[in-house]
């Protein structure tokens, strides 16, 4: 089974077969998966979806695989948290956090794209897979390649956070660190895919890989009771996720799974790596590449592959884009942790801080429903907050020493 007709060029529309291709050989545009929506509409209903397991594969007709998922069958269906405490602090009425920091098995939304890509890689008959990564993708490819009995190569910038490196090496994969930034890594991976004939998930399997991100959007819509929110704030690195959330909403409307949607998509970046938000704010669709300089390494991509399309998704939806400093993103991480008990990584801090900024700017009205996209886990980027936290007191195991601390606390409280 499967409802994929083939691939087609997103720019000139030229059709291509279902092969590991990603660039149009005529106009050099990116290829995308072409589905038989008529066929899908005949079978896919809310009832059918609800009858299935709580994983991203409950939407499998809308994913580009021919058979059942062979890798990562347990990924997805993460909590959509009604964030009442954070809503109170931000002064808004209806706020949710879509929490992929607890995705399975490697605690980021990348588990979704990887289970799609590796299932496809197996269908194509690949034996070796790999990726260019800022961290999370490497974790996901390494872990799921083990499940799939595939050999893997993870290519990353040399200076990533320790949690991301350990969280890759532990799976016994081949890690190669590159002297340079992610954009250098990405270019090298294109050459590696070409020369070695491997499935580099975010290069030559990109049309299939990216489709896995749509499930993040489908889940938001289903978990809201089969309706679309007014606003979704999305972190942007290569810019793919925001375009796939847009696609997810459009597909659900087209298939009659939700009624009309009027969702504004807002993009979030760190100011030290903000080529997409800069383009949106300057009202152009030309992305000027930058050299990233931010602690938000998971989204530090200076030359975003889907930059143009993400600007388009934002503009068509009527949304906006903002970026925040490293200090602001650390405050964002702490704010989410101290209101909702969710510890997100630097990219999540960016998204929270940008949401706050957009509300203050009036770009997001306080009385409309808002979803914040949290896509990664804070335990992987502890360096970002380590020096920004209270230093715990150390005492002997003595009740009187503990009493002394309580007395001090009481005195401070009384002074206030």
């Amino acid at each position, binding site marked *: 089974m499967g409802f994929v007709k083939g691939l087609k060029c997103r720019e000139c529309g030229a059709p291509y077969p279902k092969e590991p291709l990603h660039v149009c050989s005529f106009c*050099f545009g990116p290829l995308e998966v072409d589905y038989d929506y008529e066929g899908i509409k005949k079978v896919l209903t809310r009832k059918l979806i609800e009858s299935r397991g709580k994983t991203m594969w409950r939407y499998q007709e809308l994913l580009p695989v021919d058979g059942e998922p062979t890798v990562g069958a347990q990924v997805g269906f993460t909590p959509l948290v009604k964030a009442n405490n954070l809503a109170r602090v931000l002064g808004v009425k209806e706020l949710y956090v879509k929490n992929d920091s607890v995705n399975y098995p490697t605690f980021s939304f990348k588990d979704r794209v990887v289970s799609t890509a590796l299932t496809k890689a197996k269908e194509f008959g690949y034996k*070796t897979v790999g990726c260019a990564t800022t961290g999370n993708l490497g974790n996901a490819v390494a872990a799921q390649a083990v499940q799939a009995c595939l050999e893997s190569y993870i290519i990353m910038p040399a200076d990533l956070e320790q949690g991301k490196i350990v969280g890759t090496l532990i799976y016994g994969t081949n890690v190669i660190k590159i002297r340079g930034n992610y954009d250098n890594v990405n270019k090298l991976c294109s*050459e590696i*895919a070409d020369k070695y004939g491997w499935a580099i998930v975010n290069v030559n399997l990109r049309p299939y890989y990216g489709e896995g991100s749509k499930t993040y959007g489908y889940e938001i819509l289903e978990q809201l009771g089969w309706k679309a929110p007014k606003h979704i704030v999305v972190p942007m690195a290569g810019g793919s996720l925001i375009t796939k959330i847009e696609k997810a909403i459009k597909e659900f409307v087209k298939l009659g799974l939700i009624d009309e949607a009027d969702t504004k998509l807002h993009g979030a970046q760190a100011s030290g790596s903000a080529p997409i938000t800069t383009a949106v704010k300057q009202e152009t669709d*030309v992305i000027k590449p930058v050299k990233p300089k931010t602690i938000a390494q998971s989204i530090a991509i200076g030359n975003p592959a889907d930059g143009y399309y993400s600007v388009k998704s934002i503009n068509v939806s009527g949304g906006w884009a903002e970026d925040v400093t490293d200090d602001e993103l650390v405050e964002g991480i702490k704010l989410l942790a101290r209101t909702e008990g969710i510890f997100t990584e630097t990219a999540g801090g960016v998204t929270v801080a940008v949401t706050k900024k957009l509300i203050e700017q009036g770009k997001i009205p306080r009385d409309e429903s808002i979803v914040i996209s949290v896509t990664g886990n804070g335990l992987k980027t502890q360096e970002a907050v380590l020096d920004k936290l209270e230093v715990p007191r150390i005492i002997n195991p003595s009740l009187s020493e503990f009493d002394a601390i309580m007395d001090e606390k009481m005195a401070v409280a009384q002074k206030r």
Partner: protein
Amino acid sequence: MAVMVRIPTPLRSLTKGADEVKVEGKNIKDIVENLETNYKGIKERICDNDGQIRRFINFYLNDEDIRFMGNLNTPVKDGDHISIVPAIAGGNSHCNEIR
């Protein structure tokens, strides 16, 4: 004015295999037109139906992207170097090999 234009691999079938060709013109628009005169069929690969450079083709004049200069109207001078580079690197050539 004569400038040197670097041709990417996928377009070399149109330039009889040449990786670099010499072309006359006073701005990028002229260069594209004269490329078409010399190597028929190359313009539709580089430009869309409105005559603009395709979105996933990068044109560099002496290593600077022409979109950050005058685009098609960017003037060129004798001895300048132009590179035509597909934005998304990597090819389709190996889809049925090794794995």
